């Protein structure tokens, strides 16, 4: 295994872990079926790209057109990516989360994902349309040689710091009274409302927090890949993240990480390897990949809906049942 392959794997793992942790906050904990999740990752990637790239009129960049081009130094593009995800969540959330019932919210968000991809695909002057953006500068590339193993290690370390930061935020939310309120809203929104909880505010907050984290994951990814195009964020990418969460365990941060490692990273790597080994006719493995992901989702929802690592029961000190194994000691 060469260093680049290992780095590629680790950085993808980091990005997917961040994304699935964000989706866990939205779907696993709060019950928001965000079928447009990938749009927020894309927003972060595009924002990070145009914040770090020079204007499209610059030499070497004139083959593409895009807005912005501010050449801002690291870490501003990553922060900008997170902000873009959060800012995009505000109008989308206000339209979708205020009036619609949760099943209609899911449909509206799926449609939003398709519309956003179609618009970016066809509006070339905005973000270079279907061809996407290329030559996106890598973080700190003016200070470190990006063609070295050291730079790969640095990128892995930066990604790991972001994973740690997102884990910290997610853990604090899930294990707090606020997380309990979010779980209550997920279980019975009307009853939570009758207890003085404002479901729109709760959902909007988690939509924005999740959007910011998704945006950060996109910024990390585009900084590594140096390219970003509509074909990289089609709506099925969201389904893969949902599959990861369903397999790993909804409502459990460790389950989210496990799911990210099993599905988008592990499963896709296995299929990639099978393609390299020329198993079966061409395109058989990519086609079967979707079939298997669909079966993963159906199989887990049918036989183990709580996932590999189910949501933990929150048991308090002094409980009459100290024997409960899945307890989280709270208060």
């Amino acid at each position, binding site marked *: 295994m060469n260093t680049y392959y290992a780095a590629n794997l680790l950085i993808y793992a980091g990005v997917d872990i961040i994304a699935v942790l964000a989706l866990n906050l939205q779907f696993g904990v709060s019950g928001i079926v965000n079928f447009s999740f990938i749009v927020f990752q894309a927003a972060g990637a595009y924002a990070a790209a145009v914040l770090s790239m020079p204007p499209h009129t610059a030499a070497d960049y004139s083959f593409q057109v895009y807005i912005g081009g501010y050449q801002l130094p690291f870490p501003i593009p990553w922060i900008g990516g997170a902000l873009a995800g959060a800012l995009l969540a505000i109008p989308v959330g206000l339209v979708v989360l205020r009036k619609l019932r949760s099943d209609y919210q899911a449909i509206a968000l799926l449609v939003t994902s398709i519309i956003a991809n179609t618009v970016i695909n066809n509006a070339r002057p905005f973000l270079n349309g279907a061809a996407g953006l290329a030559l996106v500068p890598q973080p700190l590339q003016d200070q470190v040689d990006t063609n070295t193993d050291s730079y790969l290690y640095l990128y892995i370390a930066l990604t790991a710091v972001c994973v740690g930061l997102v884990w910290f*935020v997610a853990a*604090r*939310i899930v*294990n*707090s*009274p*606020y*997380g*309990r*309120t979010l*779980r*209550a809203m997920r*279980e*019975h929104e*009307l*009853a*939570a*409302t*009758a*207890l*003085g*909880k*404002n*479901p729109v505010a709760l959902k909007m*907050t988690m939509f924005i*927090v999740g959007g910011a984290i998704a945006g950060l994951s996109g910024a990390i990814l585009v900084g590594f890949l140096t390219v970003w195009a509509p074909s990289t964020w089609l709506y099925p990418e969201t389904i893969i993240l949902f599959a990861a969460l369903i397999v790993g365990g909804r*409502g459990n941060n460790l389950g989210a990480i496990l799911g990210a490692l099993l599905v988008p990273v592990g499963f896709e790597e296995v299929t990639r390897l099978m393609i390299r080994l020329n198993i079966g006719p061409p395109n058989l493995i990519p086609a079967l990949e979707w079939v298997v992901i669909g079966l993963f989702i159906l199989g887990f929802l049918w036989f183990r809906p709580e996932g590999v690592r189910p*949501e933990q*029961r*929150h*048991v*308090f000190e*002094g*409980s*009459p*049942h100290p024997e*409960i194994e899945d*307890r989280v000691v*709270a*208060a």
Partner: protein
Amino acid sequence: MLVAQDVHRHFEGMHAVDGVSLDVPRGQITGLIGPNGAGKSTFMAVVAGTLPASAGRIFFEGADITRLPAYRRARLGLVRTFQLPSEFARLTVLENLLVAAPHNRGDSLFGALMGRRYWREDEERLVTEARGLLKRFGMSAKESDYAGLMSGGQKRLIEIMRALMLHPRCLLLDEPMSGVHPRVVEQIRYYLQSLRAEGLTILMVEHELHLVEQLCDSVFVMAQGKLIGSGTMAGLRRQREIVDAYLVG
């Protein structure tokens, strides 16, 4: 304490609540009875803010709350329970109670991010309070069990305890005894009487008329969306048109 003035609720031409006016006195249990489809639950939902009124006004403690959303009415102390069990199934019984508790510094995004040290004191205080309620309602042994696994009667008790965690000034109970084992019915009856003795105001929809007679200081009767009578249960039994409406529907 709670006043409804000419409250209407229409569903595409169907008048589920049709000009209901009533006054719920402070510190009493007021019953709301009527045949199925009379509009009682819809009226309760309109009072609680779960459904908006098509017309009319609702006052609570003298303030017009007609336009307030449900969560703000709950924060004012007007707290409802539901006709069907509405427990938070994958939360423990104790957590169900803690969700309702106001004034927890950890119950905001900022508070959550600040960490346990920031909200531990509030949490410990509320856990103590919730355990007190569990003890009073005889459910201490169940605190760590998932609420979704409780019996129908226990779910009713959870709902009432959960509402009490909000320190309500007026409870809106929608058929709190329906589908409940007779032994638990007696328990609930006892608790409601003791809550009234402590000064809590209760408006209660109930089908079991003998319970209404035992519990309620005054009773309103609804049929076909309208209020057709009020008084004590004994007095209502003597009114022929009330008996007919209730029996015939």
